[in-house]
């Protein structure tokens, strides 16, 4: 049973076809990188996996851990172990980051029949995680992503991933907007997260990230489909030659 299996997926947004026959298969323990030009549909894939409203599946199928994903609500997918690190994390004024993280974890625990962790133990754990990502504990008291810099928002996404320990983490351009040190910090977090039981789908524009998080597979998404797949060398080729040669050969 694959961790994720996407077959001939067609997705429309606002009546416009964005994904046009995308297929992808991931096994537990693997890291897949997806690269591709702006507007090719990378975030659309991420959003449709997470169950974002407004993304209409017009054809094909998605199976997560062997279960077909159809009309499931986003929360049900999250509770089942799917996590999306947003390309543009949302600011929520008036809700502290700590409160948000606790609510997220509690909902996971509740869905899985586990008792909620004591607030003290929880806070200690979150502080340790924040520390490992060089995220100042002060950020835990602030409104969710409120006034966070671009890089801080991305680190906050990784913090959530580490806290919720999903089986499939989809990271949508988590490296964008990170300084050189932060890329390493975030990469270290992802590498720590990697295990034989989970998988990571990395959406990125930069081969640089793949020096730190070594992918098992690299795919190129163009015009709504995977047009090329390979190992990490493919990323280097793309860095040198861009995407144009693929469009011509495809």
């Amino acid at each position, binding site marked *: 049973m694959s961790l994720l299996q996407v077959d001939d997926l067609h997705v429309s947004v606002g009546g416009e076809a964005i994904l046009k026959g995308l297929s992808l298969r991931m096994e537990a323990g693997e890291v897949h990188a997806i690269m591709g030009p702006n507007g090719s549909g990378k975030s659309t894939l991420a959003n449709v996996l997470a169950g*974002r409203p407004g993304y209409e599946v017009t054809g094909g199928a998605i199976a997560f851990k062997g279960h077909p994903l159809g009309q499931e609500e986003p929360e049900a997918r*999250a509770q089942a172990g799917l996590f999306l690190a947003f390309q543009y994390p949302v600011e929520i004024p008036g809700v502290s980051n700590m409160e948000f993280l606790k609510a997220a974890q509690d*909902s996971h625990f509740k869905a899985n029949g586990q008792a909620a962790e004591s607030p003290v133990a929880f806070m200690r754990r979150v502080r340790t995680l924040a520390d490992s990502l060089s995220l100042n504990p002060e950020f835990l008291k602030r409104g969710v992503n409120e006034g966070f810099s671009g890089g801080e928002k991305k680190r906050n996404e990784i913090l959530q991933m580490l806290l919720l320990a999903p089986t499939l983490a989809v990271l949508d351009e988590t490296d964008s907007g990170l300084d050189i040190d932060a890329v390493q910090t975030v990469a270290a977090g992802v590498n720590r997260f990697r295990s034989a039981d989970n998988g990571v789908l990395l959406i990125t524009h930069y081969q640089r990230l793949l020096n730190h998080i070594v992918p098992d597979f690299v795919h190129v998404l163009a015009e709504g489909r995977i047009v090329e797949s390979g190992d990490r060398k493919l990323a280097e080729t793309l860095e040198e030659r861009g995407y144009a040669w693929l469009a011509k050969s495809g």
Partner: protein
Amino acid sequence: MAGEIGLEALQAPAWLGDAGLARCRRALTGKLARETWKYSPLGKVTQALLDAPMARGSPLVDAPEQVRVRRFTALPSPPECRINLHRYPLAGIVAALAGDGWLAEVAETPDRPLRLPAATPGVAAPLLLRVGAGCRVEIEETDAGASTIADVSGPQRLGEVVDRATRGRRSNKAPVNSPQVLAARAPEAESEGTSATHDNQGTLATRVVLLFLAQTAEVRWSRADLAPAREGWSLLAAELDEDASLTFNHQSLAAAFQRLDVSVALHGAGARFGSTGAALASAGAQLDLQYVIEHIGHRTVSRVKQHNLASGKARCTFNGRIHIHPHASGADADLSNRNLALSANADINTKPELEIYNDDVRCAHGATVGRLDDDALFYLQSRGLPTAAAQRLLSIGFLRDGLSGPFAEQAANSFLQQLSAATSG
């Protein structure tokens, strides 16, 4: 109209004068009243006032020794008490019904906050609070307990009040102008079996506060209206001298008729008013907030931020009027009102009004009406929060953004309880 008999029979206290009372009567049916009471039933409220029992006793509880509290009738002469009766005729009616007022004078910074229990049902004598030059005063206006009610039950409280008012009037043949009759009104109601003392729920709570801040005086007023079923009308009218500063924090949980008039006149140069408010209107609430801020002196500053959330069939009105007078050069006014509707049946009205007669001013005025943000909702759901929990968290976040002062946490808890009751019911 039955109510007019009562109105005509009213007598003016000395500080209001017959002319003042006549003015109130005229204003009740005037154009301004129609505009400022567009979303609230002025006629019903007036009638409810006329039939309400008297609330007695000093409005200040356990006042610090630096505060001197006296009845108007105990003063050698009536205090000077300016009030815009054209705009606030109900204040005159309340004064006439009460036949008295309370003067509280602060000549020295008190050693602890002034406690003002939330208005109780009935007509209470106006409170005139004078804060002397340089004094700093904290005022806490709240009631101890607050309950929540589910969104499904939407009692038409004001209707009940009016029913009772009409019943009362039929049996109440005596004129309501003499102090003896006023004093006798409560027992009379009791004999009817619909006593306000036994069933205060349906009676209008009223409060009229006239606040004067002398030079550089500083007042921080925090108010928590967290009893959702209580109907109320209140007026806070403040006048500020040079460099005086008034901060007003207001939190309101409403499921019935609740109207608050705030009037601030920044007379002195450098006078400053800041207000932060959050209100949750649910069930059949009719929440009506009316702010009028007058910039009269140079370099006067006002900052108003109000967050209102309406659920169920609630009606939520905010009217923020900024008036910059010709001599108010350097005035700086900023007013923002954000509204969220949780249900399609909620009715939100927000009306910014600006009147500016000076070019050298900075004035920002913003009003928004919206729903919960879809992106934020998806973000929370994608972290595993069920839809209802995500909505609740966003709602409380929005409200908290409008909370500050000593009651912020208490209010947030009441809001959360109410939101939970509304979404789980």
